[in-house]
């Protein structure tokens, strides 16, 4: 048993580390395309900086549109990552070990996208630092009654903590990579990033606790971040925004979209890197189940929104939900949202579908689209029809808007591809630990039985 376990460990390590050395030409192609896309993204950002956000489709009353939609969308994506790595860790869901590296990386890169947009959407982005309480000669400070500084703090914290969490989890595997490095220079580089990790029990002792604490901190954090993001809307008095259900509603939506994104990323990766033995259908199935659950939470949120609008009797709320969303300009987004976020997830009740990866993948993509639409509906449709019916206007995105959205997707995938290519994509020390744990449990079970 010992020997076999050891060989298994060895094999697994080699398999999982191997992905770092095996740069197929598909990677080159991928980097090329996504790199180009990212460059386009950068170009559009520069263009917007230079000329002004008049280049976008925004207007008065629709002063917020794509930029904010994208921001909320990306932040939401991130949440599943933290959810998997932190909350499931606390709940000792050991299966998470196989997917948490993916999802943490996803979180990190999604947050990176999310950080771009709030700055870019400013009229004078070069003054973004005025949100910080830097020692200003004029003695004017940030105005902390506004949700935007909260946002700033939340996202910054979220980004940092995600990074620390990701890196801490990565340490032992960086060490493994270092130790398997074929050439000296690679060994050097990974050696540097491994910070001299030696797997010493003395280090493990603190490491475990630190990891646990980070997980413990990340859990309330992930809840708070999207609650605060939702405050950007809930604090305002726009009909359709000014609602107390927003924080939980947003968090559920965020995790929903996040799991969708995890699936959209993992299913192909699993295939490309032949990780079928690590990421088993069981894991995918678990993700799918969570997708279904969170999907139901979101659907409930929609229902309540409409109910409260009707129950409040406020004519503007009622108009927003019962007239503007179904019939107003851009109401296509509303229907797409309902279809992708409420109807489609119901398919997940079927086990056969949950295990049919191709379909599951398509479905996860649909849900991503749906969740983007949800944010679009809240932001844009909310603003298109507000209080004064005399001053309403419809919104149409400009080509720059569309360019920035697709650009950010490219950049995200570019970063993620980088992760797949250069880092161990599965938390192998954890996987090994888990296997050992299970093996021993099985053995004890057998002993008890026999």
């Amino acid at each position, binding site marked *: 048993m*010992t020997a076999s376990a*050891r*060989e298994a*460990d*060895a094999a697994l*390590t*080699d398999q999982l580390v191997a992905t770092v050395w095996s740069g197929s030409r598909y990677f080159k192609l991928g980097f090329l395309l996504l790199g180009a896309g990212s460059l386009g993204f950068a170009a559009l950002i520069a263009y917007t900086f230079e000329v002004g956000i008049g280049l976008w489709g925004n207007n008065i009353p629709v002063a917020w549109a794509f930029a904010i939609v994208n921001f909320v969308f990306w932040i939401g994506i991130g949440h599943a990552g933290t959810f998997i790595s932190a909350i499931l860790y606390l709940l000792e869901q050991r299966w998470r070990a196989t997917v948490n590296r993916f999802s943490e990386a996803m979180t990190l890169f999604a947050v990176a996208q999310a950080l771009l947009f709030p700055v870019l959407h400013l009229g004078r982005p070069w003054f973004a630092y005025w949100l910080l*309480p830097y020692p200003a000669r004029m003695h004017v*400070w*940030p*105005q*902390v*009654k506004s*949700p935007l500084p*909260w946002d700033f*703090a*939340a996202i*910054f*914290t979220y980004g*940092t*903590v995600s990074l620390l*969490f990701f*890196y*801490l989890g990565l*340490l032992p595997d960086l*060490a*493994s990579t270092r*130790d*398997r490095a074929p050439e000296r220079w690679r060994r050097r580089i990974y050696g*540097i990033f491994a*910070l*001299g*990790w*030696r*797997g*010493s*029990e*003395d*280090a*493990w*002792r*603190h*490491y*475990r*606790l*630190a*990891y646990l*604490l*980070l997980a413990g*901190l990340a859990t*309330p*954090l992930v809840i*708070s971040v999207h609650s*605060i993001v939702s*405050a950007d809307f809930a604090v305002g008095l726009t009909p359709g925004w000014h609602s107390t259900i927003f924080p939980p509603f947003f968090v559920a939506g965020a995790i929903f979209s996040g799991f969708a994104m995890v699936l959209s990323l993992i299913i192909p990766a699993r295939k490309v890197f032949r990780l079928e033995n690590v990421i088993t259908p069981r894991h995918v199935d678990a993700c799918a189940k969570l997708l279904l659950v969170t999907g139901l939470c979101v659907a409930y949120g929609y229902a309540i929104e409409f109910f409260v609008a009707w129950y409040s009797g406020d004519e503007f709320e009622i108009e927003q939900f019962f007239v503007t969303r179904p019939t107003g300009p851009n109401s296509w987004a509303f229907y797409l949202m309902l279809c992708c976020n409420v109807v489609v997830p119901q398919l997940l009740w079927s086990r056969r579908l949950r295990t049919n990866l191709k379909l599951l993948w398509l479905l996860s993509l649909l849900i991503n689209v749906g969740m983007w639409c949800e944010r679009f509906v809240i932001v844009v449709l909310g603003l298109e029809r507000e209080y004064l019916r005399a001053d309403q206007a419809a919104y149409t995105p400009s080509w720059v808007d569309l360019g920035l959205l697709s650009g950010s997707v490219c950049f995200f995938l570019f970063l993620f591809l980088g992760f797949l290519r250069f880092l161990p994509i599965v938390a192998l*020390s*954890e996987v*090994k*630990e888990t296997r*050992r744990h299970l093996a021993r449990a099985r053995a004890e079970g057998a002993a008890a039985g026999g």
Partner: protein
Amino acid sequence: MADALIAEFGDDAALARAVERLHELGVRGLDAHTPYSTEVVRDALAAPPSRLSLAVLAGGATGASAAYGLEWLLVAHLYPLNVGGRSPQLPLAFVPITFEMGVLFAATTAFVAALVTGRLVRLWDPVFEVDGFEHASRDTFWLALELGAANTPPEERLRAELTELGATRVSDLSRGTP
């Protein structure tokens, strides 16, 4: 002349048995190098629990109080303005940032503390000189033990014991730089 030994074991159980035996022999200053954290080794070495939590708590408290203090100082005290007909001092509005900063500081403390207490952030360590040690991050479990301390058995005895205990190899470990 080596001042420490390091032995490689096929799995954690063997290593744990070795630890117990060495403890019986009165050897102290044991440390294990394992590819993943395993409770078997943990229990065998019976190291005291980490006290990281206190540092983290302190960090979090500092962050939170600093944030709230700053908000109060800047917004409510130094430059109070009539904003939306609300009074400058509005604790409710100060809460979110306070919380976020608490988390930020706590998390950063946890990370840094883990690195420091784990004696990490170093490019070289004597154990890297031991041949075959790269397996420590892959599939084998290593036990390092101090020599020369009072009432530790002589080196040869220990080597013999270790091999007997199932160590696949036993090598010297010199603390000094080569």
